[in-house]
């Protein structure tokens, strides 16, 4: 069990969440504290500000009052007049001055005193010139000084004539001083004569202020300013006045703010009380920026406010802590609740998974039971008692499997579909679920009425992409809870599993059926089967396979590939394995062979083995192979029989040299003349065939007599050749005796059998006559009888067994003489064709290997002699000697083995032996079917047999008087003599040669001569033994072939086209005269060279392709001198003597090309020359019709428009002609680019719609998708314009021309379909030809040059496409063109 990672995750969520919350609330709390603090500061600032403002306002009020006072006093004209008088007095006139001062005092003093009540102040009167004090009202005795007048304020007021007020600092006091000028009115306006100045002390107001503000007030003075010292010392502040005592203590304790800070405030704690200290600078210094001269300090007890503020702050912290705790608690609750619901969900999912897992693990059960078990689990899961899988077929619902508590449902029960809920689920794409049917929209459903099922969940089952039925669960109880997504998903998966199970079941069923069917087929076809594991060798055969070989399968167990090898014929194994290797290598699709298998009873069966590799292992090695065995012995035997019969017939015809066979055509002209006929009549077949009728060979008198006879019997004249055929026309044959006339004039009596030859339809196609020389036959028959009786007598007297056995697998005896009975105790008939026993079965088993030695001798065409034991019928062994020799035919094939077996357990073996050999030789010599002779070393004939005499036409006596040199063709004599020399010298033991003899008539006779030298016991040459076979026919045939070859070669040499034959690698073999003339090479120069020497563009590997395309191509040739020239090439492939050959027929087309080019250039020039005047004509007409030269009379306008239209048509024709010429000459430039086709089609439709409108035709495009092509867009537009204008032109008014685009493999096709009259069938072949239009009359009616389609064809072909059309006359036409599609991956 692995650790569940979830708790850890939750712990981290809790820790992380709490941390975040704490940080968040800490941040908010801090913000709130800050705000609180800021508010407090603001409050303090406001209070301080208020105090400062109060101070400033007091100060301001004082200044105003002082100024007002000064101005009010200065406004007194009397005072001004007095001052003026004073100012004009001489300085030493003290009397007048005192008077004036008195007057002034009298005037000012009462007012000053009155005002002292309100506010004590000092009043000064100043003179203008030096601001000298004229009078101090508050101190009249002091005057005339200028001390006070030195103040800048006063000087300024005197100078400018304006009144002023300012803060003034003097003598440890701070006050307000104001000055106002004294003005008198003169004739020249006002004149300033002096000034009034007022000074007030500020400090007197402080106690009052203290009361008003409820705050202590203190005044501090800058000591430096006070004494007029410069500020090079640190300012020293002195406390001048205070309303409450604290200030002094604080100053000493250094708790006060530095006055240099300017306007500021601070909170000060003193003795448990909190004070708000605020400072106000009195900026009375004339230099801005310099430290203030005085500051006013106010303080107020704010302890209560501070206490409230502190309390608020604490409360704030507590509030935020509480809020944080609350949030934490909420978070915990939320997490817990989420976790609980997730766990519930997971449990539910787990149970669904568990159920599904259980279901899928039900594989051990049978299909239906598996489904039932699954249903049960599903019902458990849903907690619904009823589960059902039903199949739906049309309107029926059939229960396939169900689970239900009672027997409410049964498997196989059928309902009408619309009576089930499943009809609803079946129609749904997904799950249908109903928790309470009574309140669902389906409560009217028939099923509810019938079964009262309240809750239902079901879905369709899909098999193989089709809905086949439903899976559903239901309950009669309503469900208190909705089906959740888990349950729905469970049902979906369940339904999918059911679908898959059903599908598997179906497939299994289908596979089972197929297997059974295959098995029955195999049984029915009587075929043996095998399955071979190539790697392990394990092989499984079916019963029939074993039966075929005569076994029961169990007898052969265990089977492997060795079983097969065991039964297979040894000769068939190796080729069979070769084929198997080729099959494994993939060279051949099937392993398919006929082999021999040994049956239980020892015979060999011919079996057709057919198989195929079905799988390979991971390394790609062959693994499993399946196949069949079919017994084809019977078929094989039939085949062999047919082959044998055919060979037999062939041999008969070939060897029928004793019978004349002559065939004729119905008119009697000879068509076949065999060698027998040649011999009998002395004519060569060449001279007769096709030249003569058989009448030539007959005595005319006999023919006449027969003609007369037939004429009489049938009542109408019969003559000439008819005498031979008259009686055979009805299909019967006729045999008569006739006299043949030999070429040399001799006569032969023959039996002539005539037959008519009929073809399959019963028509006579010729006649056949077979003539046999009766006298020769009689003689031969006699000779044969004599020979046989002589032979039999001879053999009967021989002291041993003479035999002849056939060259078959068992050396079966064809003849055994009677002596075998005495030698072995068995009758000869036992051995003939091995009827009862074979000869080898009586050979002593120990000596059997000895008899095999004979095979070697036979193979060397030598005589063999063996000594071995036979087992006599009565059990004893007999020592015998056998001497024999193979008889071979002309081709060297062994035909027979002849031999003699005699008992050597007796005496006089030597004598018998000698006698026997002599007799044997003489009998064989005499009766041999070929010429045989003994020839003396000097060439004289010592002995000749009858056949040789017959061949050469001499009698025996005549022959013996000759030597072979005399009758040998002079050209062959030398070779023959050289061979004999070689024999004599011992260089060779025998020789064989083809040579010519001259027969008695001097005719050449071709023979095959086999000659051997016989030496005596001392090794001296005695004589030659010669075998002579006539094969004139073969030589004649060869000569005919040579003549035919000569004839063909002559023919080849006389054709004008070069004909070159090539071997399969493209090397030149034959080269006719025309080829020599065209290429300037001679045959000997080019033989064996590559064709590329002549045609550089022709690689040997394209040869086959060239043939396959089967068309004439234009290529470039290369003459001997290096000159290149155009040629036309047609290739064809033939198979000659099993080898591939190519024949190239080549025509020099240089001249034709030159003429074509001349023609094209001519067309080009003419067209070009025509175009200039036409431009002028069309241009002039265009200008006139365009109204450039003014209006044209109505009557003329029509004619002129006709003229213009025709000049434009002519222009179009010339353009087309030039286009055509350019296309043909390859001068037209094609800019092929990759483009989507659909936009091009759309554009073409847009451009051609105006023209179509003229014919009231609408163009429509149908193209769903787009494809890319490689085209020249302008040229494509030209093609489309042509096709569209044609279609519009030939459509009836109001019709639609449809253009569609379709994809056909790697091509795409554009169709232009009209509903016009269609194209007459007669015109189909010419439609793309130049200057062709279906109807000449139409040309004028419809317009057009007749070149349009020809140009389209050229253009499309230049873009590697194809153009064509389909049309049924009367039903419109569809012109189409195809273009190769551009591959998507191509760039």
């Amino acid at each position, binding site marked *: 069990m692995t650790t569940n990672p979830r708790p850890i995750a939750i712990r981290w969520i809790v820790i992380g969440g709490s941390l975040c919350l704490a940080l968040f609330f800490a941040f908010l709390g801090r913000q709130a504290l800050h705000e609180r603090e800021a508010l407090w500061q603001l409050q303090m600032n406001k209070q301080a500000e208020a105090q400062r403002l109060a101070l400033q306002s007091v100060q301001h009020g004082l200044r105003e009052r002082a100024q007002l006072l000064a101005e009010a006093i200065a406004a007194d004209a009397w005072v001004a007049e007095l001052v003026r008088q004073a100012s004009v007095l001489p300085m030493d006139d003290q009397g007048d001055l005192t008077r004036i001062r008195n007057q002034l005092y009298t005037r000012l003093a009462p007012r000053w005193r009155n005002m002292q009540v309100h506010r004590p102040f000092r009043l000064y009167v100043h003179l203008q010139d030096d601001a000298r004090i004229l009078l101090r009202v508050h101190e009249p005795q002091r005057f005339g000084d200028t001390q006070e007048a030195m103040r800048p304020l006063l000087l300024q007021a005197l100078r400018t004539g304006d009144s002023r007020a300012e803060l003034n600092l003097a003598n440890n006091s701070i006050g307000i001083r104001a000055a106002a000028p004294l003005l008198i009115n003169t004739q020249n306006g006002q004149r300033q004569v002096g000034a009034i100045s007022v000074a007030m002390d500020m400090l007197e107001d402080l106690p009052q202020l203290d009361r008003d503000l409820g705050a202590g007030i203190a005044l501090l003075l800058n000591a430096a300013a006070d004494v007029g010292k410069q500020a090079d010392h640190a300012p020293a502040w002195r406390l001048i006045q205070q309303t409450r005592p604290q200030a002094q203590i604080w100053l000493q304790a250094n708790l006060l703010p530095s006055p240099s800070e300017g306007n500021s405030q601070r909170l000060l704690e003193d003795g448990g009380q909190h004070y708000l200290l605020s400072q106000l600078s009195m900026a009375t210094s004339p230099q801005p920026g310099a430290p203030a001269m005085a500051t006013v300090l106010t303080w107020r007890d704010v302890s209560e406010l501070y206490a409230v503020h502190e309390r608020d702050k604490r409360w704030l912290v507590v509030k935020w802590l509480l809020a944080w705790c609350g949030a934490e608690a909420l978070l915990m609750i939320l997490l817990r609740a989420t976790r609980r619901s997730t766990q519930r969900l997971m449990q539910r999912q787990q149970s669904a998974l568990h159920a599904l897992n259980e279901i899928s693990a039900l594989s051990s059960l049978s299909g239906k039971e598996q489904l039932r078990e699954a249903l049960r689990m599903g019902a458990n899961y849903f907690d619904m008692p009823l589960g059902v899988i039903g199949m739906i077929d049309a309107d029926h619902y059939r229960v396939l499997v169900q689970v239900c508590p009672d027997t409410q449902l049964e498997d196989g029960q059928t309902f009408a579909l619309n009576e089930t809920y499943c009809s609803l689920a079946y129609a749904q794409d997904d799950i249908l679920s109903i928790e309470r049917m009574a309140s669902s929209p389906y409560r009217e459903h028939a099923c509810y009425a019938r079964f009262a099922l309240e809750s239902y969940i079901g879905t369709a089952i899909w098999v193989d992409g089709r809905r086949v039925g439903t899976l559903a669960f239901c309950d009669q109880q309503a469900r208190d809870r909705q089906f959740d997504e888990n349950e729905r998903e469970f049902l979906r998966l369940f339904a999918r599993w059911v679908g898959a199970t059903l599908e598997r079941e179906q497939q299994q069923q289908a596979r089972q059926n197929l297997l059974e069917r295959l098995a029955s087929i195999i049984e029915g076809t009587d075929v043996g089967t095998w399955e071979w594991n190539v790697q392990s060798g394990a092989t499984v055969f079916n019963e029939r396979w074993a039966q075929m070989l005569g076994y029961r399968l169990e007898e052969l167990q265990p089977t492997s590939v060795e079983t097969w090898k065991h039964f297979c014929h040894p000769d068939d194994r190796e080729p069979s394995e070769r084929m198997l290797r080729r099959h494994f290598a993939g060279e051949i699709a099937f392993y398919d062979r006929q082999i021999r298998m040994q049956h239980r009873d020892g015979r060999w069966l011919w079996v057709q083995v057919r198989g195929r590799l079905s799988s390979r292992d991971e390394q790609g090695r062959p693994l499993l192979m399946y196949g069949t065995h079919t017994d084809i012995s019977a078929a094989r035997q039939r085949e062999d029989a047919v082959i044998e019969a055919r060979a037999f017939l062939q041999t008969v015809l070939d060897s029928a040299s004793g019978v004349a066979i002559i065939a004729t055509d119905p008119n009697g002209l000879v068509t076949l003349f065999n060698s027998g006929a040649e011999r009998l009549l002395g004519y060569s077949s060449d001279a007769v065939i096709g030249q003569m009728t058989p009448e030539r060979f007959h005595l005319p008198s006999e023919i006449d007599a027969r003609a007369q006879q037939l004429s009489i019997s049938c009542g109408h004249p019969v003559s000439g050749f008819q005498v031979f055929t008259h009686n055979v026309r009805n299909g019967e044959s006729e045999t008569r005796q006739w006299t043949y006339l030999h070429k040399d004039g001799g006569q032969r009596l023959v039996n002539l059998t005539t037959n008519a030859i009929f073809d399959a339809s019963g028509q006579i196609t010729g006649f056949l006559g077979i003539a046999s020389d009766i006298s020769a036959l009689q003689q031969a028959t006699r000779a044969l009888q004599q020979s046989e009786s002589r032979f039999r007598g001879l053999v009967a007297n021989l002291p041993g067994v003479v035999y002849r056995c056939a060259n078959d697998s068992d050396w079966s005896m064809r003849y055994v003489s009677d002596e075998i009975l005495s030698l072995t105790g068995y009758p000869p008939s036992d051995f003939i064709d091995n009827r009862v026993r074979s000869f080898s079965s009586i050979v002593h088993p120990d000596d059997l290997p000895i008899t095999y030695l004979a095979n070697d001798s036979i193979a060397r065409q030598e005589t063999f002699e063996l000594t071995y034991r036979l087992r006599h019928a009565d059990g004893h062994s007999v020592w015998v000697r056998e001497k024999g020799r193979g008889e071979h035919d002309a081709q060297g094939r062994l035909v027979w083995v002849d031999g003699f077996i005699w008992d050597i357990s007796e005496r006089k073996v030597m004598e018998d032996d000698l006698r026997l050999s002599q007799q044997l030789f003489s009998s064989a010599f005499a009766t041999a079917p070929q010429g045989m002779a003994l020839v003396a070393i000097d060439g004289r004939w010592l002995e000749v047999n009858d056949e040789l005499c017959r061949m050469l036409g001499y009698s025996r006596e005549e022959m013996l008087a000759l030597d072979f040199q005399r009758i040998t063709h002079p050209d062959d004599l030398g070779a023959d003599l050289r061979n004999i020399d070689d024999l004599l010298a011992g260089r060779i033991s025998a020789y064989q040669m083809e040579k010519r003899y001259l027969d008695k008539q001097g005719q050449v006779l071709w023979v095959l001569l086999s000659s051997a030298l016989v030496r005596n016991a001392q090794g001296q040459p005695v004589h030659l033994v010669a075998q002579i076979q006539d094969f004139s026919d073969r030589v004649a045939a060869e000569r005919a072939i040579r003549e035919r070859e000569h004839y063909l070669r002559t023919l080849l040499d006389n054709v004008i086209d070069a004909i070159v034959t090539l071997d399969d690698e493209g090397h030149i073999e034959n080269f006719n005269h025309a080829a020599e003339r065209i290429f300037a090479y001679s045959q000997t120069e080019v033989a064996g060279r590559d064709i590329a020497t002549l045609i550089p563009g022709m690689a040997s590997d394209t040869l086959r392709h060239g043939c396959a395309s089967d068309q004439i191509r234009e290529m470039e040739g290369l003459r001997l001198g290096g000159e290149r020239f155009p040629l036309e090439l047609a290739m064809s492939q033939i198979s000659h003597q099993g080898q591939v050959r190519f024949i190239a027929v080549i025509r020099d087309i240089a001249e034709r090309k030159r003429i074509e080019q001349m023609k094209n250039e001519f067309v080009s020039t003419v067209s070009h020359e025509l175009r200039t005047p036409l431009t002028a004509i069309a241009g002039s007409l265009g200008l006139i019709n365009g109204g450039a030269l003014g209006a044209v009379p109505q009557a003329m306008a029509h004619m002129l428009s006709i003229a213009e239209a025709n000049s434009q048509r002519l*222009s179009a024709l010339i353009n087309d002609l030039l286009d055509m010429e350019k296309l043909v000459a390859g001068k037209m430039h094609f800019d092929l680019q990759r483009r989507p086709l659909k936009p091009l089609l759309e554009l073409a439709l847009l451009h051609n719609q105006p023209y179509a409108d003229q014919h009231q035709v609408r163009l429509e495009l149908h193209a769903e998708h787009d494809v890319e092509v490689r085209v020249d867009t302008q040229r494509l537009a030209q093609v489309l314009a042509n096709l569209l204008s044609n279609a519009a032109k030939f459509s009836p008014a109001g019709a639609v021309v449809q253009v569609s685009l379709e994809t056909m493999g790697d091509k795409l096709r554009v169709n232009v379909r009209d509903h016009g009259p269609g194209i007459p069938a007669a015109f189909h072949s010419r439609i793309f030809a130049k200057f062709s239009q279906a109807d000449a009359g139409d040309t004028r009616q419809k317009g057009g040059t007749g070149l349009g389609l020809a140009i389209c064809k050229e253009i499309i072909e230049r873009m590697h496409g194809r153009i064509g059309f389909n049309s049924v006359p009367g039903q419109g036409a569809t012109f189409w063109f195809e273009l190769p599609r551009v591959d998507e991956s191509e760039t």
Partner: protein
Amino acid sequence: MTELKRILHVEDDPSIQAVAKVALEAVGGFQVLSCASGQEALDQVQGFAPDFILLDVMMPGMDGPKTLELIGQLVDTARIPVAFMTAKVQPDEVAHYHSLGAHGVIIKPFDPMQLAAQVRQIWNQRNG
């Protein structure tokens, strides 16, 4: 930028010369001087001071491209637009004419009612 007024037209075929003259004068309202050969054009070009030169390509003696080359030595052809009139309008041929310094190519046979517009279009492209 001056106004397009004076056109020098070089064309050996008198018929086409006449048609083009009417087309340009009557339809386009231009002033046209027609020359029958390249040599005549060389003689006249400075005196006439054309705003636009229209040259036939194939002319006996001196062909259009040669005429253009020689005119270039007499007047500033960079300032005066030149167009060829020709029936040879394969894309590579057109490119060749442009490489010789032509500003436009008018295809023969031309539509006489459109000729003036075509000329004006080439002129506007040149000056626009």
